[in-house]
């Protein structure tokens, strides 16, 4: 466990250096949050019945902006370059498990920028932009537990995206396609509860809802604490499945990898 923790710690320290970029990103995410919220508000003015209240939507949108960096939307660029140049061979010489190493790097990549951005953004949203607090203390406890599982799920997907570089070598078309699909089905574009019922019910079963949609609905009480165990079960099952998938991808990819150069 020690070497993986060390990798994660050093990666985090490196990623926390980019504070100016984080400030710029923060402004972008605030503006984007307002845009998304204004669009959804406009639909609510139609006045029809909806499975989410407007204040639940507001919490959902701001949480989405705060935890955007946690979403597995990109690959680990360093690992991709290692695969391209062949220096990934050095990693094989180390007495550590490659999948766990990549997972530890993913953990750093998903937490450090998120921590930097989510605290100020949530503070601003709660104090200035009218974001409602959690529905209750119980809801908040379940939300926190669920966010931890969401993080693991996001990392499992990140490693799968990264490992796809073992097949494509040049270009990151495959990982981009996967990320686009994941983003569309996660609730990041519109809350899944607002989709037509037949579609929403199907999409929620996929792993992507566990990173965005389900935890956010726990926060606002749109999913009551009594139903929280189902959310956590969904996330745990998918995490186990995706870790197994990623592990077999890494193993198989490394077996067929040809290292160029001398």
């Amino acid at each position, binding site marked *: 466990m020690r070497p993986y923790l060390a990798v994660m710690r050093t990666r985090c320290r490196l990623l926390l250096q980019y504070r100016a970029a984080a400030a710029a990103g923060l402004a972008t995410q605030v503006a984007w949050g307002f845009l998304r919220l204004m669009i959804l*508000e406009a639909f609510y003015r139609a006045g029809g019945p909806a499975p989410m209240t407007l204040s639940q939507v507001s919490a959902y949108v701001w949480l989405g902006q705060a935890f955007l960096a946690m979403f597995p939307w990109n690959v680990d660029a360093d690992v991709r370059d290692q695969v391209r140049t062949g220096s990934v061979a050095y990693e094989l010489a180390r007495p550590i498990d490659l999948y766990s190493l990549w997972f530890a790097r993913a953990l750093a990549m998903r937490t450090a920028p998120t921590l930097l951005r989510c605290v100020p953004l949530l503070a601003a949203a709660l104090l200035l932009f009218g974001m409602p607090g959690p529905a209750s203390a119980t809801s908040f406890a379940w939300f926190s537990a669920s966010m931890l599982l969401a993080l693991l799920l996001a990392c499992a997907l990140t490693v799968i995206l990264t490992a796809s570089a073992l097949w494509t070598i040049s270009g990151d*078309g495959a990982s981009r396609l996967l990320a*686009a*699909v994941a983003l569309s089905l996660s609730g990041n*574009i519109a809350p899944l509860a607002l989709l*037509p019922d037949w579609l929403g019910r199907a999409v929620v079963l996929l792993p992507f809802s566990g990173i965005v949609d389900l935890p956010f609905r726990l926060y606002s009480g749109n999913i009551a604490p009594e139903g929280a165990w189902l959310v956590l079960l969904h996330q745990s099952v998918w995490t186990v499945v995706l870790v197994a998938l990623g592990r077999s991808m890494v193993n198989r990819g490394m077996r067929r990898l040809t290292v160029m150069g001398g």
Partner: protein
Amino acid sequence: MRGVAGMIRSMRRYLRIYGRLAAASVRSQWQYRASFALYSASQLVATLAEFGAIWALYARFGSLPGWRLSEVAVLYGISNVAFALAEAGARGFDVFPGMVRTGDFDRLLLRPLPTAFQLAAHDVQIMRVGRLAQGAAILVWGCMGLGIGWDAARLTLLALCVVGGACIFAALFVLQATLAFWTIESLEVVNIVTYGGNQMAQYPLTIYRPWFRLFFTVAVPLAAINYVPLAALLSRPDLSGLPAPLNWLAPCVGAPFLAACLLIWKLGERHYASTGS
């Protein structure tokens, strides 16, 4: 008369050079066919999901008060086609901050062509066809659903909207790059007006709060390339509150907006001091 003939000659020269450079980038990207196909597919998924969300919200709420889905589709289509056209030429401006950092920009200054032109012709991206195709399809679908007579004047206006929008988005990409003359790094904040502007323009302007509306009418005149001309297309001057002729002429602001941004680019270029060794 001589001046006009000279201008046409130099324009033809630029077009020829642009064609050559674009063809070269297309050839180089065509070497990675699988990557090209996957990248286009990912763009198609992303943009389909965007319109899918609009459709889903219409299905859920019945309507956006006062707006039919076909009208929103026209707004969406104009904005996305314009954005995709601008994006194809924007790659050079995207990598430009890196050129400033490494000093590679010096090489561009040595060539006998305007730098902005060279950047626009740098690595023309054919991979943007995903957004272009999807935007065009939604635009055609929306136009057919409007239930208005499509005469020559309206078709011309629609073309003007797309060109004007491409000018504005291109101008924003230029402006984003220009800032790098001073900051030496790319500024993510500008994405609010590029990607955010595209997102904003997909919905009728009236749904937004007043400060937001004002910004996208006066500072970044994206309203002029789709919301205002929509009033002319639908023959509903009440939408914009402007005299009818202005609704027809609004998309023309794109060209001067681009010209102004290119002037700022020139200013930045004069400020440029090489970082290279």
